[in-house]
């Protein structure tokens, strides 16, 4: 049917438009220096060269920034999984004084732009001697109101009988959390882990502020620093962009099912 054909043609055109900048980025990263900016326009590198990547790793030590990003993103993800799942479970399955008003108050915090507290937070970090350190980047992001909300919504569906039965059997709350709750929460935890990894990996402003030593820069900050200096070297910039994007794209493609489910679930229920 022509309608189906037109529909798919439009979808395909949309897909090409969407991916074009990224595909071009990869192509340019493989071009020899200067080829990306010469006219007529080159769409295909000729010859294909890895020189830009080599330069990034040998002269500019980008590997260190990759490691920094990995350390920060993985630590933040693991820690936040623990902290936020505990809180989400508490809000969902326990009754305590002020629970609902506390939850609503917390949600109200979502509307406050993150930049509001950034400067005092920076000064606080200085008092705690966390400036220019991994922890300085990780600590403020460990507790996530969004994450607590997401997990709490999902945790509501844990059957109370399951928990009560375990309590009657004499299991401690810690054991219940570890042995029963966590396994049940696994799907939403995967979703949240992907979200957390992506957002910490891509975080730019806070690491820019808190890190002053270029040996500690995460990739987005290193990339911004690079682009401030090597404005003319487009191919090099593109190679840097590819390296920055690759890990998070891989994580997304591998786990996209969970992530997309989580986004849609969170929005419909919310």
């Amino acid at each position, binding site marked *: 049917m022509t*309608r*189906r054909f037109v*529909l*798919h043609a439009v*979808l395909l055109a*949309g*897909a090409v438009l*969407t*991916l074009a900048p*990224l595909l071009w*980025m990869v192509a*340019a990263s493989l071009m020899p220096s200067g080829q*990306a900016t010469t*006219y007529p*326009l080159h769409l295909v590198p000729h010859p294909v060269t890895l020189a830009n990547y080599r330069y990034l790793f040998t002269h500019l030590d980008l590997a260190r920034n990759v490691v920094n990003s990995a350390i920060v993103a993985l630590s933040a993800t693991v820690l936040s999984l*623990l*902290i*936020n799942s*505990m*809180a989400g*479970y*508490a809000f969902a399955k*326990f009754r*305590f004084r002020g629970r609902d008003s506390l939850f609503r108050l917390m949600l109200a915090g979502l*509307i*406050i*732009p993150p*930049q*509001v*507290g*950034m*400067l*005092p*937070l920076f000064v*606080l970090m200085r008092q705690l001697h966390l400036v220019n350190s991994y922890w300085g980047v990780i600590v*403020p992001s460990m*507790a996530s*109101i969004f994450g607590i909300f997401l997990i709490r919504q999902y945790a509501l569906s844990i059957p109370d009988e399951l928990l009560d039965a375990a309590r009657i059997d004499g299991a401690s*709350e810690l054991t219940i*959390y570890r042995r029963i709750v966590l396994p049940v929460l696994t799907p939403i935890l995967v979703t949240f882990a992907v979200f957390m990894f992506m957002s910490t990996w*891509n975080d*730019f*402003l806070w690491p820019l502020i808190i890190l002053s030593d270029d040996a500690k820069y995460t990739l*987005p*900050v290193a990339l*911004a620093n690079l682009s401030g200096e090597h404005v003319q070297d*487009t191919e090099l*910039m*593109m190679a840097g*962009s590819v390296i*920055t994007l690759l890990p*998070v*794209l891989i994580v*997304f493609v591998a786990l*996209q099912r969970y992530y*997309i489910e989580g*986004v*849609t*679930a969170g*929005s419909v229920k919310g």
Partner: protein
Amino acid sequence: MGIERAQQRAAYALLAPAALLITVFFALPILASLILSVTDFDIYALAAPGNARFVGVRNYADLLRTPLFWTAIGNTLYYVAVGGPLSVLVSLGAALLVNSKLTRFKPFFRAVYFTPVVTTLVAVAIIWKYLYGLHLPGLPAIDWLGDRHWAKLAIILMSVWKSFGYNMLIFVAGLQAVPQELYDAALVDGATAVQRFRHVTLPQLGPTFLFVSITTMIGYTQLFAEPYVMTQGGPLHATYSIVEYMYEQGFRWWQLGSAAAIAFVLFALILVGSLVQARFRPAETS
């Protein structure tokens, strides 16, 4: 009773780490900002706190008298007014296409359209900065990022590209939640596709629409990294956003009192914008 007490204790223990972190690293700085905004805390005060003075609403009054503040507000409102609807429309369009019953390979298209969302903003800004500098044969030679009239639009286009996939997913979820019976009933009544869209789909999407438009608006009021990386707020402050102004006041001039005042003005803008949109939500028709 013993069990209940034990449960309460457990609840507090489970909440404690998150509560502590949120209080210390989120609530406290916000409170500090509120206090700072009524002082003239600046770099002198950083050297010695005794150099800060209580100034009441002077920071806020000064902002109102500063042309650059109004420029930043104007730019930000432009981003919201142009970028917001554009973003919502593109996402809705993509959602309708992807969700259509005729569409095959749905997961593939969903993933492709979502890819820009996943990307690192700094990396993407660099790519687009380059793309905007290209002279493509056939297209008028516009210096997208260097021309005062086009720069904001250029930034919005990039922002729409980067984020439409996220709202697309939300719209898809909303579309799938529309009860099929409503469509069937409309078909029975002889409604065309356009009429079905207007009288069934749109009203049913009301809450989703509201959610998407509020979150999109919030996103555009907080626009920072795109102008920061691509144009540094230029040319001549044409793309200078309110968060950039706050960042410069805070981290370049160390006028912390002024920066805090800007932050709260921003917050007030978002609050007002959200309330206004909630008030004007499309009425649900049955």
